């Protein structure tokens, strides 16, 4: 991960706080009053208010220039344990250094941030709880020195790696064994037979220069007197492209971020389980424009997918659905199965499903529902809350049923299981191309 430390010039600059501006404002007012009333009394009171921010700004500690961070996020299930240490030459001003680590959207604080300070290091611990499965790229905590009066502050630079948290349901493991639509030039239900690096044993052949050592059959080589390697039959049941929709909706940034975190968790969990079964996986993220990761398999592809998913952020502008379909045609062959993870239920012309189907791809829409996130958020009485939840559920069901005419849609409202998606994948109906 790249360090996200601020630039040195920005980090070392002293900035006044709002408290300093308040004091300067009142000090200026008292000075003006003094001149207007021809009395020195307000000026005597103004001098401390005007001078203190300047002195505070000039007294920033010289030695406190760098603090390197080592931290990690542990825990299982919904629990996240954050712990870390900042190493630097803090000196006596360590008391005035504050560490701030706000939980990202969708995460609640189960144990508040605890900070222990010494002259050479600052250690911190916090406990968070996830509301739903998510893949989070945690931004490093901000480290700020603030003078004892709270009038001037300066952020302390240093190496601050970002930390990622990966939590997705265990039920994902079962989905990877489901057969996908085969993707070859001659479509059908016959398994493709390709000689590859893994799979079932196919036969023996003479080793070529540069052959990996693990593929050499040592017994056969000893018998024949020359190096012989194993060949394997690579069975591919099909290819899968996960399309991650990062377009903004009218629900607001907080809900969009949580839904995107959920979508990222689903995308990575599904990709990982299908990769385990030698399926070629691609990833496309669509915000305003399409970014595509070509189809491939193996451990390196898993790392590529993880990095691409962690890079995916909520886009500022929503791109039209046709653009996404055209982009997919450019990167992937027709008849490749598309799994669209999108919570878009607004303008129907922006729905990806019909356009991707028209592009020649069998597509399934996995739509994370925002309803569980909004549960009990309205401040209503329990009875009214139940009624509102029921109405919202009916409205969502209507919207989802309208989407079903374009292709299979999975309404994902129980975040810790993906059994509804598994049920859809088991049916042959999803193989139909519009």
């Amino acid at each position, binding site marked *: 991960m790249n360090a996200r430390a601020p630039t040195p010039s920005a980090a070392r600059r002293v900035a006044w706080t709002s408290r300093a501006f308040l004091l300067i404002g009142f000090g200026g007012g008292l000075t003006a009053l003094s001149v207007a009333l021809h009395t020195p009394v307000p000026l005597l009171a103004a001098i401390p208010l005007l001078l203190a921010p300047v002195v505070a700004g000039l007294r920033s500690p010289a030695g406190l220039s760098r603090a390197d961070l080592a931290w990690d996020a542990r825990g299982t299930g919904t629990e996240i344990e954050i712990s870390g240490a900042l190493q630097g030459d803090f000196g006596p001003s360590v*008391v005035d250094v504050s560490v701030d680590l706000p939980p990202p959207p969708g995460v609640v604080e189960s144990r508040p941030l605890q900070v222990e300070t010494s002259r050479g290091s600052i250690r911190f611990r916090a406990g968070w709880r996830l509301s739903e499965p998510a893949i989070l790229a945690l931004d490093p905590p901000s480290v700020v020195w603030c003078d004892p009066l709270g009038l001037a502050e300066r952020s302390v630079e240093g190496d601050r790696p970002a930390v990622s948290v990966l939590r997705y349901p265990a039920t994902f493991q079962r989905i990877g064994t489901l057969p996908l639509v085969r993707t070859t030039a001659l479509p059908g239900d016959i398994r493709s037979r390709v000689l590859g690096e893994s799979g079932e044993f196919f036969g023996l052949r003479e080793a070529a220069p540069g052959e990996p050592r693990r593929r050499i059959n040592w017994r056969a080589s000893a018998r024949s007197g020359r190096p012989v390697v194993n060949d394997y039959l690579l069975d591919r049941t099909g290819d899968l492209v996960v399309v991650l929709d990062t377009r903004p909706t009218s629900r607001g940034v907080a809900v969009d971020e949580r839904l995107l975190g959920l979508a990222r968790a689903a995308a990575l969990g599904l990709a990982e389980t299908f990769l385990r079964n030698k399926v070629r996986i691609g990833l496309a993220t669509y915000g305003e424009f399409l970014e595509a990761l070509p189809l491939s398999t193996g451990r390196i592809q898993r790392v590529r997918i993880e990095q691409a998913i962690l890079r995916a952020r909520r886009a500022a502008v929503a791109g039209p659905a046709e653009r996404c379909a055209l982009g997919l045609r450019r990167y992937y062959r027709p008849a490749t199965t598309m799994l669209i993870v999108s919570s878009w239920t607004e303008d129907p012309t922006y729905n990806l499903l019909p356009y991707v189907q028209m592009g020649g791809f069998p597509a399934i829409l996995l739509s994370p529902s925002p309803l569980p996130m909004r549960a009990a958020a309205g401040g209503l009485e329990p009875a009214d809350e139940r009624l509102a939840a029921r109405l919202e559920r009916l409205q969502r069901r209507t919207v989802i049923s309208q989407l079903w005419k374009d292709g299979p849609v999975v309404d994902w409202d129980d975040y810790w299981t993906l059994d509804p998606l598994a049920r859809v994948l088991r049916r042959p109906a999803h193989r139909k191309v519009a």
Partner: protein
Amino acid sequence: MNAPGRPPARGGGLLTLVLFALTLGVLGLLGGLPFYLGPLVAEVGALTSGFARRRRPSRGAVWTFVPALAALTVLTATATIGAATELFAGLSGLAFLLWVADDPTRPVGGGRRAVATIGPVVLAVGLVWSIGLVYGGRTEQVGLGGALIAAGLVLLGLLVVSVSRRPLDDLPPRSPEARGRRARPVRAEEEPFPWELES
């Protein structure tokens, strides 16, 4: 170092609040408002701020200072000219700073740590007040002039801080030549010796 797992002790701010309320109260007594109104304005302003700060101890809640500053403004604007009122106006400002330093959201001992910041301010207030005291014959003009000089210094400081993009601690360290010592020749680590090349 704090005990493991225990949050650091937080400042209370009660003692400094009392100090601020007292100095502001004396300023109210000496000021131009009627006998009972001056101390009333002072104590209401100081205690409202103190109560608001204890109720909502947040670093961003700057509005909690507004009642105290408003009381200070009213009392100094209505005060009669005199050495005592000028002295207590300056002392009220200093006591206010001490109370600000005793932040309940930060570790205890803020007032003690802020001495280095408040020290120059005390000097400036003392200088301006003593100028007005010594040249007592023309208190208004001298006091006003001294305060304007202090204000000029403040503006100069503001200019230095806001215009300069490099604070003082950002300057490069002085070279040995600049310190008057003889510079030692330093050999680059990457550069190998001739016999190292041969081997």
